[in-house]
């Protein structure tokens, strides 16, 4: 293998990701230029729409909540050396779990129903990830391919269930009936209103707190626990793990179960926090954004929160921007996500080598 590129920690964890993001934005700016729009005006609309108003900020944080969950999901698997591209499918199944739990346990009071919904989401997401995990661990089937297949299986399954089984008989739309009111996770503006504080209305709900707590717990797990250590050892060197008495197969399955459960958080935020029913395509490709978020955040919970915030700004600001400048549709965010994945992931070495080179130059010049 090639020699690792030596550089100080701050350069590795902050400078390199920052450079890839800046490069991604420069290229995105070129795309905006090439379709005849002004990138600077676009950036202004983007920032104004996402951070300039209280309402915009609420929406930004709502999207960030989604991305924290899927980012953590990708990161946990990544630490175990696995590439979980199945966030979409796992979140879809989690949505199914939520709908089944909430619409069948309507007799329960809210303080039981909400945790029941969250647990159902985690369990269904975990189960959908456990199968590819098991197949990778025990049968050697490549996790990337199986999770891709499971994404498509999930999308076919959910269409079938919503059209034929779960749909309200009178309804034309392929969606379930509204979840019982007691199961709705309160909106942030509602929660603040309990204390007499008025904040602008938005989709932002208390799931954000669950996301931040999850991020902290995952940090504890990965960097401060025995299991997390085992996960990182398996990810770094499965052969060494065996000698250390760690079973890679067991760790792979555990990491995938955790990863799937975390992906379920996306369904909690979208369905229990906002839509209050199960509908088609509520995952909106966010599972793939999770890959960008995890790569950019260097698979570290703190990095993931920051990267999620950035993508929250992009999604909310992108919606506002599309409203102001119809030529720049929200697909721009997908493009930026793609470029970030390319730069922070696949072309990572390019920037690392560049930074290492520049740093060594300045060191020589200083000496």
């Amino acid at each position, binding site marked *: *293998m*090639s020699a690792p590129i030596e550089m100080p920690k701050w350069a590795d964890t902050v400078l390199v990701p920052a450079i890839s993001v800046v490069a991604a934005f420069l290229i995105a700016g070129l*795309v905006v230029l090439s*379709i*005849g729009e002004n990138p600077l005006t676009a950036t202004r609309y983007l920032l104004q729409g996402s951070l300039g108003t209280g309402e915009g900020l609420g929406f930004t944080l709502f999207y960030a909540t989604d991305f924290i969950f899927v980012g953590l999901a990708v990161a946990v698997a990544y630490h175990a050396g696995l*590439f979980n*591209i199945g966030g979409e499918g796992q979140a879809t199944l989690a949505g199914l779990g939520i709908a089944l739990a909430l619409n069948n346990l309507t007799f329960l009071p809210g303080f039981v129903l909400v945790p029941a919904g969250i647990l159902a989401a985690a369990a269904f997401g975990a189960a959908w990830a456990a199968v590819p995990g098991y*197949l990778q661990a025990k*049968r*050697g*089937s*490549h996790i*990337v*391919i*199986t999770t*891709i*297949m*499971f994404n*498509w*299986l999930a999308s*076919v*399954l959910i*269409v*079938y269930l919503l059209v*034929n089984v779960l749909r309200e008989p009178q309804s034309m739309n392929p969606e379930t009936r509204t979840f019982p009111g007691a199961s709705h996770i309160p909106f942030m503006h509602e929660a603040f209103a309990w204390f007499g504080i008025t904040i602008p209305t938005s989709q932002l709900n208390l799931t954000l707190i669950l996301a931040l707590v999850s991020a902290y717990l995952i940090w504890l797990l990965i960097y401060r626990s025995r299991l997390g250590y085992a996960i990182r050892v398996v990810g770094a060197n499965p052969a060494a793990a065996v000698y250390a008495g760690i079973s890679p197969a067991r760790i792979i399955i555990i990491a995938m179960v955790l990863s799937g459960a975390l992906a379920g958080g996306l369904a909690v935020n979208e369905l229990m926090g906002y839509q209050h029913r199960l509908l088609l395509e509520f995952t909106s490709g966010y599972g*793939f954004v999770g*890959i*960008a978020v995890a*790569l950019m955040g260097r698979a570290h919970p703190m990095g993931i929160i920051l990267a999620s915030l950035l993508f929250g700004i992009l999604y909310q600001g992108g919606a506002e921007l599309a409203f102001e400048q119809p*030529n*720049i*549709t929200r*697909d*721009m*965010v*997908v*493009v*930026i*996500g*793609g*470029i970030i*994945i*390319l730069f922070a*992931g*696949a*072309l*990572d*070495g*390019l920037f690392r080598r560049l930074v290492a080179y520049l740093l060594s130059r300045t060191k020589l010049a200083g000496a």
Partner: protein
Amino acid sequence: MDLGIIATILDSALRLSIPLLAACLAGLWSERSGVVDIGLEGKMLVSAFAAAAAAYAFGSAWIGLAFGILASVAFGLIHGFASISQRGNQIVSGVAINMLAAGLTAIVGNAWYGQGGRTPPLEGVQRFDGILLGHSALVYIVLLAVPLTWFVLGRTRFGLRLRAVGENPAAVDTAGISVPGLRYSAVAIGGILCGIGGTYLSVGQAAGFLPNMTAGRGFIALAALIFAKWRAWPALGACFLFGLLDAIANQLQGLFIPGIGEVPVQAIQALPYLMTVILLAGVIGKAIPPRAAGVPYVKER
């Protein structure tokens, strides 16, 4: 079921299997050289857009094909640069290619034509019309690629070297043959094939580009590739099988069978994915990828 319906189903199965086959063979070339390619979907999408846009602008389906291939090869080379020269993660690069293609085609299509990402409808010489048995030239080009792939990979010096690079690049390197050179040519050939597949979608099968019109075909092609165990003739079989399933599902859509009720079309749609997972699990036979697939090659210093 009478013969007429069977003929219709077989005919539409062939039509539906052509884009799968093109992408599947593209994946075959790339992965046989050791470069895993989950960006087939994105390359087809970008070529479908470029082909439709060029066919509309220049009023010729063949110029459309040229641009479709160019766009797809360009994306293939990005993937090649990341995975061969930069030794980056090939899966990550493939995901990036798919996202870039989905985003760029939608945004540029919307900016150019203002029709929600669609290109204007193509007609007359802007499209590939049937030349034989109602099928267009592209169908025959893609079908011809099967024996060609089989022959080149199995019977020529270039093909044998290319396959060796996918199994044991160090040995090829020791023999003094360029590993990156072979891998880049494989990725470029994959780009050409994806370009033909994408062009077939927007300029042959349909009359214009629709946002996200590949609709997962690149991933079904990936499934077919595993099913075919990375071999050309079985790839034809697997793609035709998956095309046939698709055709049957279309035929049965909304059909009511007494006793069963409405046919769950989704069950048929799920079959390719399900069969691939079962195959990968090693329950029926075993699909073993080229040994060096996905592993960047580092020349010894």
